[in-house]
């Protein structure tokens, strides 16, 4: 509850900061401090000391998983704001409001990671989405940004419609919106199964799982790079947190039907994401497709739904978010976001190039980086079920494909000659980036350091 209330409050605070303070560089600091406070309180809550003890009437339930997920999201956002705060100022004129919206998004994340009621899911997703529509279009002069915002909005609303239809059918079948109560009823009836499928489709849309991913590349590409960074990381993984909470009990009771459904979605997502990313020339767009591909891996957690899956999802969220935020923070400072733009990176910026390489290696799932354990847990969760080994093999095949396009960037940076145009970076930025890389490597050597929080 701390997260939800505090982030809403901080959102309002940011709005007022925007009114009273006109020095833009302050926003970033205020925002960072607020996020830090938020993080502290969220961790405090996960240690059992919530300051807001509100009876949520079973609408929300704060379990370690959700709280840890919040922590990861808040922490990632903190890193994000600190790394990319300066670039946020360039995306439109309403920097303070953008910060406020980010807080509102965090509020939505706080809801979707701990809902127990479909109503909260719906409201949470909307709180999550509406600021994003706006953030996407926050650079009003940019036609691509406009287009992206409109596309995102239209398709997002469409998926909301599907979600609602699904919820309605579930309700019709069970007479309740509580997630758990329906789950315990054993095999789903046709009505609730249809509802479940519709909800599944809607949530697939939110996490950009194929074949409902079409908005993702366009929106990620069109939005300002800083915003994409946020959307593709924190928001996306939060979607998975929402997803897994729903699936945990419900879709599972559909038996092999749901396995098949998720299995096909996984394969399609991996295939679309990876194959399309291979051909991209723009790194930004490539990362958009890669985020689809990564989503494919996270979907493994939904397929397995066991301890390993939830642990893995946490790790994945952390590793993926940090790495992607790191890459985007550099990308946002570049003029040329195509592959050629990265040629000769290691010559002029050896440190940043090395850090980028670590991020990319993490995304590709190379050992010694967090991304490896993330993928490892995902695969392990499915193997643990003892079923569908073929799916795992498809997964690793596409993981190999994914190495292809991540390494293209590394190749451009290290093995090709060229001049890069990079906005000046401060030392603080570099140190922070080093810190992020350190975290990724830490996760890659001692993943337990994160997961042990789960079993407090």
């Amino acid at each position, binding site marked *: 509850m701390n997260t939800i209330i505090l982030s809403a409050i901080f959102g309002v605070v940011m709005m007022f900061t925007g009114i009273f303070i006109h020095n833009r560089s302050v926003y970033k600091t205020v925002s960072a401090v607020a996020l830090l406070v938020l993080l502290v309180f969220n961790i405090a809550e996960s240690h059992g000391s919530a300051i807001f003890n*509100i009876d949520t009437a079973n609408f929300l339930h704060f379990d370690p998983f959700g709280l840890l997920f919040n922590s990861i999201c808040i922490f990632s956002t903190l890193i994000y704001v600190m790394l990319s705060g300066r670039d946020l100022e360039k995306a439109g004129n309403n920097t303070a409001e953008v910060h406020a919206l980010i807080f509102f998004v965090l509020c939505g994340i706080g809801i979707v990671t701990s809902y127990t009621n479909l109503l909260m899911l719906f409201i949470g997703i909307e709180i999550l989405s509406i600021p994003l529509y706006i953030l996407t279009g926050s650079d009003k002069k940019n036609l691509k940004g406009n287009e992206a915002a409109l596309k995102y909005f239209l398709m997002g609303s469409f998926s909301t419609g599907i979600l609602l239809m699904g919820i309605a059918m579930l309700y019709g079948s069970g007479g309740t919106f509580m997630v758990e109560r329906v789950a315990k009823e054993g095999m789903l009836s046709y009505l609730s199964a249809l509802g479940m499928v519709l909800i599944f489709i809607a949530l697939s849309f939110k996490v950009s799982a194929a074949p409902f991913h079409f908005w993702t590349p366009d929106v990620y590409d069109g939005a300002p790079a800083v915003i994409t960074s946020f959307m593709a990381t924190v928001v996306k993984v939060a979607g998975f947190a929402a997803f897994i909470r729903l699936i945990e009990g419900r879709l599972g009771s559909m038996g092999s039907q749901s396995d098949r459904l998720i299995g096909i979605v996984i394969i399609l997502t991996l295939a679309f994401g990876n194959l399309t990313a291979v051909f991209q020339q723009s790194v930004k767009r490539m990362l958009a497709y890669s985020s689809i591909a990564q989503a494919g891996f996270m979907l493994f957690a939904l397929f397995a739904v066991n301890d390993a899956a939830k642990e893995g999802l946490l790790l994945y969220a952390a590793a993926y978010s940090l790495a992607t935020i790191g890459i985007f923070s550099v990308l946002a400072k570049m003029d040329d976001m195509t592959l050629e733009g990265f040629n000769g990176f290691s010559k002029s910026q050896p440190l940043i190039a090395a850090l980028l390489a670590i991020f990319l290696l993490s995304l590709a799932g190379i050992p010694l980086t967090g991304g490896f354990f993330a993928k490892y847990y995902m695969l392990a969760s499915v193997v643990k079920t003892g079923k569908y080994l073929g799916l795992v093999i498809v997964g690793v095949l596409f993981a190999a494909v994914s190495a292809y396009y991540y390494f293209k960037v590394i190749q451009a940076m290290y093995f090709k000659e060229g001049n890069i145009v990079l906005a000046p970076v401060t030392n603080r930025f570099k140190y922070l980036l080093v810190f992020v890389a350190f975290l990724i490597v830490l996760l890659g050597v001692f993943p337990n350091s994160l997961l042990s929080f789960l079993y407090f």
Partner: protein
Amino acid sequence: MSTTEILFWFLSALALVGATMVLISKNPVHSILWLIIVFFAISGHYVLLNAQFLAIVNLIVYAGAIMVLFLFVVMLMNLNSDSEPQKNKWFKIAGAISGGCLMLIMIDVIRDAGEIQHAKALVKEGNIGLIKNLGMVLFKEYVVPFEISSVLFLSAMVGAVVIGKKD
């Protein structure tokens, strides 16, 4: 056929016709007007189901506020002509067919749903839809989502300002 049934069929037909006309109308303003009719029809259904509160809210929020907002926008943009270029014919057919398929399949699935085969919706009776009962539950049990939705409005507000403000 009882009055209720007659009303049901009438409102249903009205809603469907209205909805269809929303699609068919070339003029956006006409579409909006048809949509308002649909909303009225749906509100009628709510009344029929004795959900008076929702019926009124539906009229006020949808038909009143939202659709007027739409109308304003359309007027503002001066789109009230038949100027909308038509989509590719094949594309339209494909859209209609796939929508139709979706409909048929969903209905077919529902037909097999056992638990609702003989269930009936309580028409004209039952007072859960009355504002008093709703209010009691809303402000007691649903207070958390109610309060939280304020964040939604807040963000929508901020958003509208950010997007709509002239730089």
